[in-house]
């Protein structure tokens, strides 16, 4: 390995290249050895498969598990290509690489660096497989009721569907929602009790009580009394373990990842899986009840990786300089004719219907506003002529204009900045405190409740409006399409 000493002028964070690469490989899950990186610079073929696999791990949203490793290399390669393409990876050479891992390690190294430069990849991967020690609840609403894994096999409906079937499904869905609510209420009550009873025994004063994971670990350190079936997550959202970022409800046809999931047969959900996990990070994502030994081992591993990530952050400057040289050794690519990559196995829906909807709404709104504004402007002009003119008149008008501009600006910021800084993301550990005291960075349940209530009101308004629109459309349809009889569902 060529040792390059960055000159002291580069700053206090200088390090050597081997250190940086070593830190990087330690911080990534089953990262390739530093030797692989060196070989990749020289485009050696033996470094290729390791890099394909690493890229797959980085890009795949599925939790790491033993089953993932069993996917064939060419499948992995194909998935990596399509994932990179979808993120806008600029280099064409990657798409043309053979998928058997026989060549192209330099391109793969470039791809990896591209990903590393765009986002905090090691941290994200760590967060994906983080060991949640507490009872957690996510604050943001992303994927709250997202579908995990593949949809259960259904008989594809052929031919026209009886509307009663749809109504029945709707009713079933409502029933399930109610069930969820009551189960969740019970879960909260039990959780609260556990927190209350174990108050005062946690070594960490700020927490004060045990979480279910910790209590369960104490109750059953050997893990011999595991609940049969899938592990129980103590995440109150219980929608998904980390790392399983599946499509939002309504992605319709199965995506490739769902099929992949089927292939992997839901790793980590088998009771025996956590007993000797090949990658404890993966198992922890699915089953949060550990025997003490496994939990400790996982924690220790996580700590080691955390340290590696910190070391990487301190030394990464050298790595980027090196990557520039690697890029330099590649010949610049000729711009190619823009063509849709042909290796995609599915046709996703890109929500053009969605945009259509919004366009319609905005157009109706525009119409409405135009009429109202014109009317009012005319009325105002008439009135204004009657009133006197004077300097204070124009001053007040200017003041009004400014106020309105400010208000509207604030309104615009509401949707420009997707979510306000107050909205934290990610899971939060639940802590019960009688007095409800919280530190600066902690959230209070009362505040969250307020936010949620306003969100609820907003959504309810939106739902009502949509339902009205639906009814209008139906009325139009009933008139327009002969032979269509629509029986509106009761109570809608």
């Amino acid at each position, binding site marked *: 390995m060529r040792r390059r000493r960055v000159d002291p002028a580069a700053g206090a964070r200088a390090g050597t290249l081997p250190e940086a690469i070593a830190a990087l490989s330690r911080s990534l899950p089953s990262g390739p050895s530093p030797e692989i990186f060196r070989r990749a610079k020289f485009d050696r073929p033996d470094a290729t498969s390791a890099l394909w696999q690493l890229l797959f791990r980085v890009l795949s949203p599925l939790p790491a598990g033993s089953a993932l490793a069993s996917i064939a290399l060419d499948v992995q390669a194909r998935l990596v290509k399509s994932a990179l393409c979808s993120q*806008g990876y*600029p*280099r064409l050479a990657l798409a043309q690489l053979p998928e058997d891992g026989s060549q192209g390690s330099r391109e793969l190294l470039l791809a990896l660096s591209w990903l590393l*430069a765009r986002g905090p990849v090691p*941290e994200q991967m760590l967060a994906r497989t983080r060991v949640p020690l507490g009872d*957690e609840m996510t604050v943001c*609403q992303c994927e709250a009721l*997202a*579908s995990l894994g593949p949809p259960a096999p259904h008989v594809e*409906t052929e031919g*026209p*569907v009886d509307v009663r079937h*749809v109504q029945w499904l709707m009713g*079933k869905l409502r029933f399930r929602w109610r069930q969820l*609510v009551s*189960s969740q209420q019970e*879960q909260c009550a039990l959780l609260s009790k*556990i927190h209350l009873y174990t108050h005062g*025994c946690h070594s*960490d*004063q700020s927490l004060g009580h045990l979480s279910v994971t910790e209590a*369960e670990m104490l109750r059953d*350190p050997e893990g011999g009394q595991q609940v049969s079936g899938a592990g*129980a*997550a103590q995440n109150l959202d*219980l929608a998904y373990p980390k790392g399983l970022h599946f499509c939002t*409800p*309504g*992605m*319709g046809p199965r995506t490739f990842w769902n099929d992949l999931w089927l292939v992997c047969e839901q790793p980590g959900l088998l009771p025996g899986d956590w007993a000797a996990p090949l990658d404890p990070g993966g198992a922890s994502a699915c089953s949060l009840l550990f025997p003490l030994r496994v939990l*400790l081992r996982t924690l220790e591993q996580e*700590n080691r990786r955390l*340290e590696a*990530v*910190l070391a990487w*952050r301190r030394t*990464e400057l050298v790595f980027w300089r090196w990557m*520039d040289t690697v890029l330099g050794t590649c010949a610049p690519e000729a711009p190619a004719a823009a063509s849709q990559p042909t290796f995609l196995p*599915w046709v*996703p829906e890109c*929500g053009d219907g969605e945009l259509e909807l919004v*366009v319609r709404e*905005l157009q109706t*709104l*525009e119409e409405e*506003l135009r009429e109202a504004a014109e009317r009012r402007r005319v009325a105002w002009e008439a009135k204004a002529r009657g009133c006197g003119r004077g300097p204070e008149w124009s001053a007040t008008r200017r003041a*009004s204009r400014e106020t309105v*501009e400010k208000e509207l600006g604030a309104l615009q910021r*509401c949707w420009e900045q*997707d979510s306000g800084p107050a909205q934290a*993301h990610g899971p*939060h*550990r639940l802590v019960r405190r009688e007095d409800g005291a919280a530190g600066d960075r*902690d959230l*209070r*349940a009362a505040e969250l409740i307020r936010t949620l209530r306003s969100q*609820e009101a907003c959504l309810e308004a939106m*739902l009502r409006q949509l339902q009205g629109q*639906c009814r209008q459309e139906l009325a139009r*349809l009933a008139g327009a399409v002969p032979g269509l009889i629509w029986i509106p569902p009761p109570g809608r």
Partner: protein
Amino acid sequence: MLPADCSRRLVAELQGALDACAQRQLQLEQSLRVCRRLLQAWEPTGTWAWEPPPEPETNEEDPLPACIPSPQDLKELEFLTQALEKAVRVRRRITKAGERNKAPSLKSGSFVTSPGTTASTPPQPPGQAGGHASGTRPTKGLRQTTVPAKGRSERWLPSGQDRTRVGIGARAPRPGAGLRNQHMAPSAAPQAPEAFTLKEKGHLLRLPAAFRKAASQNLSPSSSAGITVSLCGSWGAPRVHPRLWVQLSSMQTSDSMDAAAAKTQFLQNMQTASGGSQPRFSAAEVEAEARRLRKACSLLRLRVRKELSAAPVDWMQEYRCLLTLEGLQAMVGQCLQRLQELRAAVAEQPPLPCPVGRPPKASLSCGGGAEPTWSPQLLVYSSTQELQTLAALKLRVAVLDQQIHLEKVLLEEEMGVQQRSAALRRT
């Protein structure tokens, strides 16, 4: 009857929603099972992790079950075993009187010194042979492990009458450790005295030291500073790096400018050296923009409603209302324009599809600009009621989201039907 293709999507969506609910229900139920089990009496399973509350003289060894007892431990084991047997004999004489002794539990040291001390007497079923584990209820300060080498799984149960740490006057330092690798003299089946319930004795639990150390390194504020931790050899020398996740977060925010600049430079170089065409919208970006515009639409609509329904009292309010309406009209126009541009761009160059709904980067930050914080923060609640309200509201919002989505699908499909029938009529 609904037209076939329209209904298929609707049915698929409904099925998807049903599946999502079912999965979540399943997880909830499993979690409930775990919680219920925790709240019931804990069955003895073989090992129990009691830890003494931090005391200066207590050595907080953390012998994992794999540790082999040292010869000294075994000797003391013998000692204690004999003492315990004697204590049991004494106690049985006492319990024959039919009393249930509620005296404080034996101090560990007192086994050796005063075998006659009354110990807590959990109810003993008749006919149990001597040398019960039950008779020798150590204080909660003891860690009991089974020694697998002996091939027996004696179960040590905590006493039903344990108090918080009884004064341990004559407590020798080692018996604590020795008792950890306790193996009782051959005896009959383990006793089942008053079982351990979280309700009564939850506050006495202690986490094992190794776990505490690892967790404090990982996350929590360094409370282990004052405790000297010595571990079994297999775990190596202890190092305390408190709050690694927190360090990571702080490093994020104060990222080296050089590194950031180097990264941007590298990305630019990549772009120029590559043959790829201008970066086009990825499906994720399209979705994000559409989401923003949708949000804009709903917010605008709400505002318009508000303005139109407001009754201005004086001319100033009326003026402001007028200005607002005109301003809103301009904003709507802008949004429409953006939307049309987006649609044009999408139609011309189909957006790059995503393998999943969102790429990992976006999903972690939830489409927002907020910096992801790596270490989980706390969410503090003060009562069961509050927690339940919070969870119920969250679920309600999620359900509303799902409902809205379904309505949108229905609307889209209806419009699609309309378009198709209009096209049919034209031909």
